[in-house]
């Protein structure tokens, strides 16, 4: 029994009633979306059955969470079809799903109603080790069920300018707190990174890809030159572990010029490139991402994204959007219908040029300017996920570099499991 004062996340149809209207949409993916949208709360019973030697607990991350805390609760969940759920621990008052222990296994519940058996992410073997300088390896390379994450720069320079940071983002406020509380090093030592990745790879069958991301670094002779160099050095350090020149990898970074992208492709083992437009509407981009708009601009960001297809190849270039943020008020779309039409229209224009679009589920986090807003309905996210995946199928775009296994944060690319 979960006791607490809570109000409904939104005045909307229930999960069951929403799904009834989408009989062609997998229930498990809908559940993932909704758990990410509303977050999860771990009962005392559930927490009592967490084993820190077995389960992966919350560690350093690029963004914060809805509970604004570093308490060692589970990092996240897996559904029985292998779907990753990246759900924020969320205070009970905010109407989250409940993670409970039913005497035999972990389960996901809505109030007292059992919805699904779930698994808590397993901790990789290397998490128990420290580097030569004493840094826990999980602070050098963090893990998802099948992916290694490297965050070389956790400071975003767009935030260094007044009103420059993206309004849905909490990167800098979170990372300042993270450095203070977890003592995460502000910058990685490359030798230690090489060694940490090497340790991670000793566990057979555990990892399928490496993802690099971080805050934008504006410095350099040309805009982003220092960020590019940082990623080249980082990728080369990681690459020392492999026999092949290229290794399955994704870089999620700023919108680089062709010259910068060619360097990344030719000088490293990188196999895919993602640069996030965040919201597929120029006027909303200008409002929500003022730093990106000022230094690069929507049209130039978009042009660079398309230009990257000629360098990395069709199906290896993507853009991420913060799904739902297009409905942020007061300047966002006024109806979910209008938001969906506009977003899918622009995603189709990108798909025609070989760029694939994936969405995350917008979580208005406490450290962001949009902290008081609410994400749209589950119905909206189901339509968005279906729409983006339909475009991928229509234009024959591969998404293996950012799919359910190699990422797990995009409901639309979860659907690509049925795509050949």
């Amino acid at each position, binding site marked *: 029994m979960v006791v607490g004062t809570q109000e409904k996340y939104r005045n909307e149809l229930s999960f069951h009633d929403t799904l009834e209207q989408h009989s062609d949409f997998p229930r498990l993916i809908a559940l993932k979306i909704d758990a990410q949208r509303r977050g999860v709360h771990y009962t005392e019973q559930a927490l009592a059955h967490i084993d820190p030697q077995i389960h992966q607990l919350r560690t350093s991350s690029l963004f914060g969470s809805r509970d604004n805390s570093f308490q060692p609760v589970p990092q996240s969940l*897996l559904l029985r079809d292998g779907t990753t759920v990246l759900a924020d621990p969320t205070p009970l008052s905010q109407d989250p799903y409940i993670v409970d222990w039913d005497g035999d296994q972990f389960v996901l519940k809505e109030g007292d109603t059992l919805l699904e058996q779930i698994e808590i992410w397993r901790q990789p073997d290397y998490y128990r080790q420290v580097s030569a300088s004493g840094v826990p390896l999980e602070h050098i390379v963090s893990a998802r069920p099948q992916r290694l994450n490297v965050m070389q720069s956790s400071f975003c320079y767009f935030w260094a300018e007044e009103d420059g940071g993206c309004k849905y983002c909490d990167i800098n406020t979170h990372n300042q707190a993270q450095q203070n509380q977890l003592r995460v090093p502000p910058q990685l030592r490359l030798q230690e990174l090489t060694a940490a990745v090497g340790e991670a790879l000793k566990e*057979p069958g555990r990892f399928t890809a490496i993802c690099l991301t971080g805050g934008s670094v504006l410095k350099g002779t040309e805009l982003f030159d220092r960020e590019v160099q940082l990623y080249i050095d980082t990728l080369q350090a990681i690459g020392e572990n492999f026999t092949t020149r290229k290794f399955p990898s994704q870089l999620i970074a700023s919108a680089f010029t062709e010259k910068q992208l060619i360097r990344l492709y030719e000088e490293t083992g990188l196999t895919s490139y993602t640069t996030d437009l965040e919201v597929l509407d120029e006027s909303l981009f200008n409002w929500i991402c003022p730093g990106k708009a000022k230094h690069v601009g929507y049209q130039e960001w978009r042009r660079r994204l398309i230009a990257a297809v000629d360098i990395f190849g069709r199906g290896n270039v993507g853009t991420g959007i913060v799904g739902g943020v297009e409905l942020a008020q007061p300047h966002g779309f006024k109806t979910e219908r209008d938001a969906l039409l506009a977003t899918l229209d622009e995603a189709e224009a990108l798909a025609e040029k070989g760029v694939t679009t994936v969405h995350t589920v917008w979580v208005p986090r406490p450290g962001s300017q949009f902290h008081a807003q609410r994400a749209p309905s589950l119905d909206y996210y189901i339509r968005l996920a279906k729409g983006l995946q339909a475009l991928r199928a229509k234009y024959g775009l591969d998404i293996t570099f950012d799919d359910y296994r190699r990422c797990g944060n995009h409901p639309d690319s979860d659907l690509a499991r049925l795509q050949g």
Partner: protein
Amino acid sequence: MTRHTLTPELIALLNDPETIKILGTTSPDGVPHVVSKGSIHAGDDGRVHLFQVLEHSQSNRNLTHSIWFDRQVAIYLRGKDGTSYQIKGRPVQHHITGPLFQQHYVNFRARRGDVDLAGVWVIEPEQLINETPAVRIQEENLRHPHVTHLDRLVKPTTAS
């Protein structure tokens, strides 16, 4: 559909490497797809387990569709002595990470060399059908004794 317990005979058949093992699935459009699947075996949890080597194979996609939309798959087994069974069931879990997956990943590669393993599927058995020809003929004769060709009922002629 209630879960069926695998009998010791069926477990032995599932785990015998000489058993012919066939997996039948259907696509989202209902198109049947049948493959030989030597990795089919009885799991410790009393369910049927099988490996998928290829992430994007038709079988793997059909199994994903089946777990998402609660559809049955079929498994056919034929032992070296002719004993045959069909198991109908539903995929209930797909291990792509975790101890069970990693244990199979290591063992599979030890046996097969440098090959990958995409996942281990778990099938909940719902119908166990003995398809051994002699058994099926006997069942059919008992249920439908008058279904036969008349020439089989003709008195034998005596040689003159």
